[in-house]
């Protein structure tokens, strides 16, 4: 490979991606890591078996094959676009080696074409993990033509990345680099959540509409949007293994990607330069020479106000936390529809609200404790670690309350008894995940809030387990069964097992968040 060439740059990027992936197994031997990966691959293939059987039946009967593949693509394509958007903004803002590459005498167009290619590969890999096992099992049951999913998915990766790049550069051009990150993240979230909600779309529509959709999908009128021979169905036919369609879809996707990657390379370069120098704060007009505000006294108010300010001033971070709310929405829909005729919306929202409050509390408490910007500064202040912890917990509680206030208020009107139980379980769930993060801090940067469990996988698993247990307990309580005590007892046991045994006279520890003890770190 010629140094500085497109292929060389792509290989460089892919090597870094591979090392990031391998870094997940850094504490394991190569053999153990290989075994884990092999077990995961086998597991995904086993899980794909029922889907493959179902598809094989559609394949055999013929009439519903394309609609079934189309439904799958409605999930996969937005997912790829969402990943591409996220990866593009991350590449521009996290920088990494971008400054070095931009300072080098390489053609910026080559640099950004290579970046775009890496983004495409990363975006398609994110979906390939879940899609390719289905394709393999389909090929085993239904025939080798299902292996066409491999090139079709690669083509989808290029097409989806092209869309993601166009959206990112358009946003940069119209709203500027400062807002682009947030807006791109919100768009990525909505696109991603759209796919999650789309999963349940068929259950949400009325039976009449559902029947009409089935009829149109199975027997589409010629020339209509549902016509399987139309251009809109090209990717569907490609994924289903039609060679002509596969070729056309691949050529179209690669050309679209090349046009965007090469054509917008210069724009991406400008966006990257602007993103690097983008002020993350609006310069304010010079104020008059007087104190702009009154100081207020007290350790508690100071700490609480500081936490709230840091949260409120990082909208990107807030959007990351809010992602969890959006991703919980489909759960409500599933529960609502599964409750049958007697189901009420309040009953459906309640468990999801418990999950949301616990997850938001977990994220915020991690931000407050583990991603404290100046832990040494706080440790050098004349305040005990316990006092700092208590104030931070108080600071976390208020935003969690705000998040659940509106749906709870609606519930109070619709079903007051459900609202009361929901409030009780939200408080319990939030407190338990917040305490978990206080007991087991895992220091990291604020921007890594959604990847915080990479450092502390056990804490992450416990967080999800507690959220599910409290949610389950609420559901059982709402059905007026004493069995609710079972998940509550398990949640209590999980918390008791995780509570650190504090030694008396705990010594301060260098460069660790206030309140961290030696026992607290043992889980990581």
């Amino acid at each position, binding site marked *: 490979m010629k140094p500085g060439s497109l292929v060389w740059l792509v290989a460089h990027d892919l090597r870094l991606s591979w090392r990031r992936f391998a870094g997940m197994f850094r504490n394991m031997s190569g053999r153990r890591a290989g075994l884990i990966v092999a077990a995961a691959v086998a597991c995904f293939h086993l899980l794909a078996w029922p889907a493959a059987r179902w598809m094989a039946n559609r394949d055999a009967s013929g009439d519903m094959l394309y609609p079934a593949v189309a439904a799958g693509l409605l999930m996969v394509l937005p997912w790829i676009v969402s990943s591409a958007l996220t990866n593009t903004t991350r590449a521009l803002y996290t920088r990494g080696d971008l400054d070095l590459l931009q300072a080098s005498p390489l053609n910026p167009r080559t640099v950004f074409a290579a970046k775009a290619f890496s983004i495409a590969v990363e975006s398609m890999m994110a979906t390939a993990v879940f899609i390719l096992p289905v394709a393999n099992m389909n090929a085993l049951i239904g025939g080798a033509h299902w292996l066409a999913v491999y090139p079709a998915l690669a083509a989808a990766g290029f097409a989806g990345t092209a869309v993601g790049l166009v959206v990112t550069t358009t946003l940069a051009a119209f709203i500027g680099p400062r807002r682009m990150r947030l807006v791109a993240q919100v768009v990525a979230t909505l696109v991603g959540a759209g796919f999650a909600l789309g999963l349940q779309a068929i259950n949400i529509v009325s039976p009449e509409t559902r029947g009409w959709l089935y009829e149109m999908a199975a027997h589409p009128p010629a020339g209509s949007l549902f016509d399987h021979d139309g251009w809109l169905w090209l990717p569907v036919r490609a994924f289903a293994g039609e060679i002509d369609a596969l070729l056309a879809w691949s050529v179209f996707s690669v050309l679209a990607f090349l046009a965007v990657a090469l054509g917008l390379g210069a724009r991406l370069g400008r966006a990257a330069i602007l993103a690097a120098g983008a002020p993350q704060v609006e310069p304010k007009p010079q104020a008059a020479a007087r104190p702009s505000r009154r100081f207020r006294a007290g350790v508690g108010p100071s700490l609480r106000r500081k936490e709230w300010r840091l949260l409120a001033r990082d909208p990107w971070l807030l959007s990351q936390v809010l992602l969890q709310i959006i991703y919980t929405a489909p759960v409500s829909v599933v529960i609502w529809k599964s409750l049958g005729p007697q189901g009420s919306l309040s009953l459906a929202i309640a468990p999801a609200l418990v999950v949301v409050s616990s997850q938001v509390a977990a994220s915020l408490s991690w931000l407050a404790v583990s991603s404290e910007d100046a832990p040494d500064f706080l440790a050098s202040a004349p305040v005990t670690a316990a006092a700092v912890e208590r104030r931070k917990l108080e600071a976390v509680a208020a935003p969690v309350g705000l998040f659940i206030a509106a749906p709870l208020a609606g519930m109070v009107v619709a079903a007051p008894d459900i609202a009361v139980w929901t409030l009780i379980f939200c408080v319990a769930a939030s407190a338990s995940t917040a305490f978990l993060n206080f007991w087991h801090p895992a220091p990291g940067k604020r921007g890594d809030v959604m990847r915080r469990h990479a450092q502390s996988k056990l804490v992450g698993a416990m967080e999800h387990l507690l959220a599910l247990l409290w949610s389950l307990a609420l559901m059982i309580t709402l059905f007026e069964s004493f069995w609710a005590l079972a998940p509550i007892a398990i949640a209590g046991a999980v918390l008791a097992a995780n509570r650190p045994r504090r030694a008396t006279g705990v010594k301060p520890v*260098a460069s660790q968040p206030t309140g961290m003890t030696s026992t607290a770190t043992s889980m990581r």
Partner: protein
Amino acid sequence: MSDASAPAAALRLTALRKSFSKAAVDGLDLIVRPGEFYALLGPNGAGKTTTLRMIAGLLAPDSGGVEVFGVNALADPVAAKQIVAWLPDEPMIYDKLTPLEYLEFVAGLWSVPPDVAEPEAEALLRRLELWEHRDQRCEGFSRGMKQKTALAGALIHAPKLMLLDEPLTGLDAAIARQVKDLLVERVQAGASIVLTTHILEVAEKLADRIGIIRNGRLIAEGTLGDLRAQAGQAHSTLEDVFLRLTQEAA
């Protein structure tokens, strides 16, 4: 235990020890007097930062004692921290806060009454030429501006003892001059300062006494004249003296 009849030292370290994989601080005895500007010098890895972090309560010593103005900092760390300020080379500030908000936060932590803290904050920000930027978030600041904000935070609670670990690293000449002038004023007003630096000219010009530490032990201490005499180099610069003494101890 300090002698009750003697005036309390600003800082008294007694047989202080701390080991990581090897001894970082190895039985260090040190006294800094009230109103003294003390420079703690040493080669990289000598144990300077570890020593300051133990005094500031950020690191627990394995053994030994730390006393700040008569307060046992290991037994009553909160009381000791109340009169100590810690300023490392990397500014400990919050990017999303403005300088004024940062000072309000620091004043809150040290329980400085608002009617005292507010005018002091204004005076410090004006003095450090940050007043025009008081409502801008620190994330857009240069390193020098961030370090000045952190310095203002260290000064707003009027500490009796200041621990400064390489406070001038990365500052341009003008900002470094502002910082040095402010530190000298504080010492003249009665505060004590322990400063580590690799810029030996700073120690030469500012320090009342200089301690040289190597492998966690104090190998020389005194005024520049004392050190020259110890090194047998009557007319040498501090740099020559420092190199001679540290090489001798190697």
